[in-house]
């Protein structure tokens, strides 16, 4: 677990040795889900919690929120006991596959949740309107929730998580089931949270999204944290190879520069391992007035780390 001695920053979430088992089935067979989770989320960062399905991501989140009572370990939110009401007043939560009350309209729903925070009426109305706009549901404000599509439910879910203007937002698979446009919108909203000084804890198994927006990540596999740290520290900037698409050069000239692995429609797809060779190719292209269609350095991705980590389990 990271300890910041140089600069004391409040941990938004701090979990130490969290354990949970469930007794399932008729014979009450004990199944260990969390086998001693320890992690910390710094205030103001976007923290990604990843793992394969069934690793214990949602269980961890439910422990944090008081929906599940752990067998052992400790949880603190902003240095306070995690279940205290004064703490929960500053937390917002969006569950996975959200489902809400069929018969309420979006506006009524947000109003209801606002009441649970004892927000005064005027504030509730204002917040409802602004949140509905924020998540792009302004037009559906008076539509009953049972008529909402999956994507719309996700958005209203996000809205209810923000009704109390929380300092910490916990999102369980927030980008699931959204189309690319939706995902971009949500990603943008999450980044805005950071700009507003909120802390975001999000769990996902879609690595590309995590990579795009998270500062730090923890990887959980089989109930244990197997890797944790800043993204840029976890992922080396090492370039594995570079992929180049070009046209206008003769086959022979590219012979020893790299692996040519396909030719399509006059374009050559090259995979170059050596960085120095890339420079030579560029010089060649310039010399011959050939054309570079694309040049992409392939670095280590989160997926690589993830797959690696999981394989080693």
């Amino acid at each position, binding site marked *: 677990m990271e300890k910041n001695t140089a600069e004391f920053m409040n941990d938004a979430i*701090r979990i*130490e040795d*969290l354990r949970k088992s469930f007794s399932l089935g008729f014979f009450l067979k004990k199944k260990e889900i969390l086998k001693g989770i320890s992690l910390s989320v710094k205030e103001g960062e976007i923290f990604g919690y990843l793992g394969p399905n069934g690793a214990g991501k949602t269980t961890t989140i439910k*422990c944090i929120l008081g929906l599940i*009572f*752990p*067998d*052992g*370990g*400790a*949880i*603190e939110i902003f240095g*306070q*006991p*995690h*279940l*205290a009401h004064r703490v929960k007043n500053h937390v917002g939560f969006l569950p996975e596959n959200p489902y809400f009350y069929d018969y309420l309209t979006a506006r009524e729903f947000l109003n209801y949740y606002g009441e649970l925070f004892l927000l005064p009426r005027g504030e509730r109305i204002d917040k409802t309107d602004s949140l509905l706009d924020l998540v792009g549901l302004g037009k559906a404000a008076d539509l009953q929730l049972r008529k909402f599509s999956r994507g719309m439910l996700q958005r209203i879910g996000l809205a209810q998580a923000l009704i109390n203007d929380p300092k910490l937002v916990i999102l369980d698979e927030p980008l699931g089931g959204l189309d690319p446009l939706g995902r971009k919108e949500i990603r943008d909203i999450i980044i805005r949270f950071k700009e507003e000084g909120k802390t975001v804890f999000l769990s996902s198994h879609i690595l590309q999204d995590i990579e795009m927006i998270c500062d730090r990540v923890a990887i959980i596999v089989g109930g244990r944290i197997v890797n944790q740290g800043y993204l840029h520290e976890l992922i080396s900037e090492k370039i594995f190879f570079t992929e180049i698409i070009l046209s206008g050069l003769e086959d022979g000239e590219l012979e020893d520069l790299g692996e040519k692995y396909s030719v399509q429609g006059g374009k050559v797809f090259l995979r170059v391992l050596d960085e120095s060779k890339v420079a030579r190719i560029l010089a060649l292209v310039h010399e011959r007035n050939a054309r570079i269609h694309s040049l992409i350095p392939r670095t280590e991705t989160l997926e690589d780390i993830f797959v690696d980590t999981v394989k080693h389990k």
Partner: protein
Amino acid sequence: MSQAVTPRRVPDAFLLVLGLCLAMAAFMAVKAGTDGIARAKVPGSSIIYVPSGQYLKYATFGYSPLAADLVYLWAIQYYGTYEIQDRFAYLDHIFSIINELDPRYVDPYEVGSLIAAQEAKDIPLALKILDRGLEKNPDQWIFPFEAGHVAQMVRDYDRAGDYFKKAMVMPGAPDFVRRLYADSLYKTADYKSAWGIWSGIYNSASDERVKKIASNHLYQVKAAADIQVLKDAVAGFKDRCNRLPRSLDNLAAAGFLPSIPRDLDEKDYVYDPRTGDVKAATIPWKR
């Protein structure tokens, strides 16, 4: 660092459990209290408004025997509650419902007729119930048997006799039913038939006790028949001679009777010339 496991406020669960125990104690105490309050009871009075057992049968979805049991149990409690003054108002209705629901349930017929006869003093109803019992259960001798007794209660020996006659030939009927029949024949003054039955019983008696009983009854019947004959003769003598005969022999001498009958023990009948009364010499069951 706060533990995730320990309860946030220690008294939390304790308060709840305390509240639980208090609430429980409270309602149990109140219950004990309200039990003591007498409430005007007309238990299950709504059954009275059920038009007939037939409808109830359909409503009980094949559980009619169970329904019969329940209604019967209730009825017993109901009729055992003597404070209810007008409880006999629907006696017929209630027991007809029970019988409709389970025609082969014997007890309600018996108990219903018992209540009718003994408590409600409604003999026709008692007989009605038992008749119904017999109708639905032609193999149960108990129904005409009891009906005979009920008839006897109001001295309707004719009817009693009919019932006993029915009962005695039914399977399982005990021997003594025959004797009851014979006795009711005697009581209706059908001495000839009575004699016939008692003779039959005497002859087929399996033990001494029954033989003795039969013999006593035979004595009784003969005595009754003979006395009737003698009395008629005495009356005829009085008509003709304007006086009572001095002794029974006079009757024979005067030609009113071919001979003077004697009782079964070959004893003479006792004649009182002052009143003209004829009696048997012995009491039949003191022989």
